[in-house]
Structure formats: C-alpha cells, structure tokens
C-alpha cells in the first residue's frame, strides 16, 4: 500500500515537472519563431539601399526606410529631452526625500503609470500639442514618448540610489561638502552605470512604440529634420507597409522589422553588459 502511494506521488511529481518544462518551451517557442521569421523574411529584403534611400512610390521597386530610421533617432532625442531630466531628478527626489506618505504616493503612481497604454499618452499629446496648432509634429510625438520614459527612469534611478552604502555618503559629508553636491557628485556618480542601463532600456522600449506616434508625429514619406513638421518613424513605417496590399511593401516591412529588432535587442544586450561591468 505504502509502495503504491509512493509510486503515485512520484508519478504526479514527474507529471507536474514535465508540464512545467512544456510551459517553458511554450514561452520560448514564439520568441524563436519570431526571430527566425524576421531573419529569413527580413534578411532577403535587406540591402544597402534599404538603409540609405527614401521609400519609393507603389509600383517602383527598391527604395528604403532611411528617413524612418533617422526619424526614430530624432524622436528618441526629443523624448530624452523631456523624459531623462524629469525621470532622473524625480528618481533622486524619491530616493533622497521620498520616505513619507507623499513619496509613497508618487512611487505608486509611477508604477501605475508604467501600465497605462501608450496610445492614451498619444491622445494626451494630441490634445496638448496637435489640436491647438492643427498640425502633426515631431515635437508632439517626442513629447508622448518622453512621458513614457519618466516613470521607468525615475523608479530605476531611485532603486539604484537606495542601494548606495551609507558609509559612502557619510564619508563625503564628513569632508564638508554640501548635501546636494554629495548626492550628485558621489551618490549618483557611483551608480551612473546602472542609470545608463535604465536609460538604454527605456530608449529600447520607446524605440519600438508605434501607437502614440500614429496621431502625433504621423509619418512622412520624405526627409524631415524640422521638429515642427510630421516625421516618419521605423515602427510607423513597418505598420503602414504591413497593412498595405503590396507584396513588395510586405518584404520591406520585414526588413524594417529586422532592423528594429536588431536595434532593440542590441540596446538590451549592451545594457546587460554595462550592468555586468559596472558591478
């Protein structure tokens, strides 16, 4: 009888562990197939022209997404102007002065905010920066993306600062420098590798965002360096091409996807490396 129970237990044990392994496979298979698909379909459409030329009209073969790649870079720069100072200084506030009710409230809001759909940020930017001027612009897109950076950058900065040993602070203060200088020159400096990691991850995240750009920066088939004009972005271009009825554009969308995945995963890997080396 005991033997029977032991066998049954062992069988159930094995079954449960086997199911867990299956679950792991189920969560890895999509990633692998997406990456392989992007490599296979995108790789064949990727060329030097794709990276250096403007999109061509329907029917003409060739062309590329150079303006969209540059546009994404400009949007990320605009977003960083909004998101980085607010995020980093906000994080410093939470870590240094935020140990009260109000601090907890902001912390909680930041966590909640990082779950608000990005398209809602797009509407917010639209009502603030597009509707009054009746004009789509890169600024509005950059603003929407920048808002998305604030909560993540702030929370990362805060958590990093809180891990700085007290002795380091005390040593700096004992030398007689003011509190604010101690925070900026000693504490923040000692975790700058981590903060850089957080920034890179935030950039990787907004780099692939499409939804908040649909009705802010809107897209543009030509070169544009004016931040008050509509501008193209890589994910926007992928979206438009994917939904088009033309096979050629589908191939271009896949090539764009390959470029975007390379940039985003590259940023993720680089940030991992920085984290490892700064430890």
């Amino acid at each position, binding site marked *: 009888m005991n033997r029977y129970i032991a066998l049954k*237990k062992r069988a*159930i*044990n094995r079954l*449960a562990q086997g199911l867990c392994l299956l*679950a*792991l496979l*189920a*969560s890895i298979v*999509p990633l692998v*197939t*997406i990456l392989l698909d*992007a490599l296979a379909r995108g790789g064949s459409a990727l060329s030097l022209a794709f990276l250096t030329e403007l999109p061509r009209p329907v029917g003409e073969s060739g062309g590329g997404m150079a303006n969209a790649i540059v546009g994404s870079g400009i949007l990320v720069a605009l977003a960083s102007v909004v998101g980085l100072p*607010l995020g*980093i*200084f906000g994080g*410093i*506030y939470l870590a240094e*002065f935020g140990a009260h009710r109000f601090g907890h*409230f*902001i912390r*909680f*809001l*930041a966590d*909640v*905010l990082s*779950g*608000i*759909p*990005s*398209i809602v940020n*797009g*509407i*917010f930017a*639209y*009502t603030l920066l597009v509707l009054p001027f009746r004009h*789509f612009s890169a600024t509005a897109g950059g603003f929407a993306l920048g808002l998305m950076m604030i*909560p993540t950058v702030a929370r990362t900065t805060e958590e990093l600062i809180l891990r700085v040993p007290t002795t380091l602070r005390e040593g700096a203060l004992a030398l007689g420098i*003011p*509190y*604010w*200088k101690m925070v*900026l020159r000693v504490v923040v400096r000692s975790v700058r590798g981590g903060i850089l990691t957080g920034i890179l991850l935030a950039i*990787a*995240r907004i*780099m692939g*965002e*499409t*939804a908040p750009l649909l*009705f802010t920066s809107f897209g543009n088939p030509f070169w544009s360096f004016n931040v008050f004009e509509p501008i193209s972005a890589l994910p926007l271009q*992928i*979206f438009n091409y994917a*939904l088009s009825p033309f096979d050629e554009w589908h191939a271009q969308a*896949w090539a764009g*996807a390959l470029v*975007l*995945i390379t940039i*985003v*995963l590259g940023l*993720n890997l680089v940030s*991992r490396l920085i984290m490892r080396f700064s430890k």
Partner: protein
Amino acid sequence: MAKVNALSGRKPRRRISGDLIFKRATLLAALSIPLFVLGSAIELTRGAGEAIRRFGFSFLFQTSWDPVNLKFGALPFIYGTLVSSLLALLIAVPISLGTALFLAEIAPWWLRDPLSFIVELLAAIPSVIFGLWGIFALAPWLRSTAEPALKRTLGFLPFFQGPAYGIGMLAAGLILAIMILPIITSVTRELFLSTPVPLKEGALALGASWWEMVQAVFFPHARSGILGAIILGLGRALGETMAVTMVVGNRPQISLSLFAPGYTIAAVLANEFSEADSNLYLSALIEIGLILFLITLLVNGAARWLIWKSGWAAAKGGSGP
C-alpha cells in the same frame, strides 16, 4: 533632522541654500508624475465632453458605430477588449506559472539566468513586430491548421463555429497571451524565489513530495502576489494596441465565435483617430480613450497594490535563514 541649533537653542535663520534649491528642483521633477496623471484625466475628460453630453451613459451600451450618421456606441469595442484580454489570460496564466516554477525550482543552476533572460527578451520585442508576425505567420497557420482542427474537435461549442479567417478574436487573444507571458512570469518567479527556505524544508521534511510542497508552500505564500501579476498582465492586454489592431480584424461586431473578427478600444483609436473629420467623432473617440484610461488606471492600481502587499508580507513575515 534637528532643526534647532544645539548651542543657542534657537532655530537657525532660513536662507536659500544650495540644498534647498536642490530639493525643490528634484521635487518639481517628481511632481511631473502626478501632474501627468492629472493632466491626462483632465484633457481626456475635456476632449470627451461633447460626446458625454450628447450620448450620456447610453454610449457604453449602444452597439452601432456609424461616423457618417454620427451615431456612436462603444459596446462592441468594450466587448472585444474584454474578450481578447480574458482569452489571453486563459492561455498565458498556466504557461506563465509553469515557466516561473521551472525557472525558480527545476532548471539546473547554470541554466536559470540565461533562460530567464530569454523569457524576458520576449518583452523587449516591439508590439508592431508581434503584429507583423501575427499577420504573416500566425494568422495563416490558424486559418489552415489550428482553426479547422478546433472546429473538428470542439465545433459543438459556439466559440468555435463559423468560417476560419485566421484574422480574428482568437488570433488577438493568442498574440496578447504571448505578449503578457514575460511580465506574469517574471513577477511570479520573483515571488517564488522569495519563498522562505525553512518553509520549503519543513514541508519536505514532513514527507511532502516536491509537487505537494509547491502546492502547500509556494502557492499560498505567493497567492496575492500571483493575483497581482495576473492583473498586471490583464492591464497590459487591455491596452495593447498595435499587435491587436493588426490581427483582430477591425469589425465592430459582437460575436460569440472566436474565429470571427472583432474590434478593441485601442484598435479603434489606432485606426480612426487621425481620420476623425468632425468634432463629435473626435470627441467620441476621446471618450473611448478615457474609458480605456480609467479601466487601466484601476486595473494597474489594483495589481500594484496586491504585489506591494505581497512583497511587504514577504519582507515582514519572512523568517528566513
């Protein structure tokens, strides 16, 4: 901090010091976060005003969406959002829990970090690429293989009837499931890793098998946190835009069949916002956005609260080694 001078016993004269400026400046930056929430709420409500005045509560229950005749009802979008998100949870939760358990307990030591990294990489893939893959890989597979098979085996259920398009609610649910897997997995894995070792050892010492130990120790310990993680995943699914827009079929209808095309709140915003040609149309769209904002605010608030509570319980009650 002592605000009183120890020698004179008087409060020191307050002057504008570097420290004060520093504190004020960082406070200002931190205030951008509540300001952002408040600003969104105000702007969305203001923008939705015209539609709210015109349709009132009936906006939530009307099923027609007719921009030409200016008749707007949000029910098909609300329905599609809820159904696709719940479907995603149904698929993702068991897989996530199993994966988290595998990563926290079963995998050999040297494999744990790399495997966790791979699962987290899935979260880094941009939404639009999931959509692209959904259109050109997932949907054709659903149309030719999965949906006919479901129809053969489970076709007596109303969920699996009708023509197999590939594009539709099922595709949206599947894509969403893949997209919320990493967040549920990583939160749950952290919770499992924070389970106090003595509890585990105690259960094993009493003769529990590994699976019995998991049931008796892991799940009760992490229960509210797991619930939080699931609700967090729900929040992501409700607001996910691009991938869903690309595979859901974009037809404002309510159909029991999962093969049928549907529409979601985020998708209608993505498709129609920049084309709204009248004030009322735009206002109706902003009201839909307001609904999405309020729902996700609530859902994410609840999720964070549960996870924090669970984390505090672990920090306080953890009689660790």
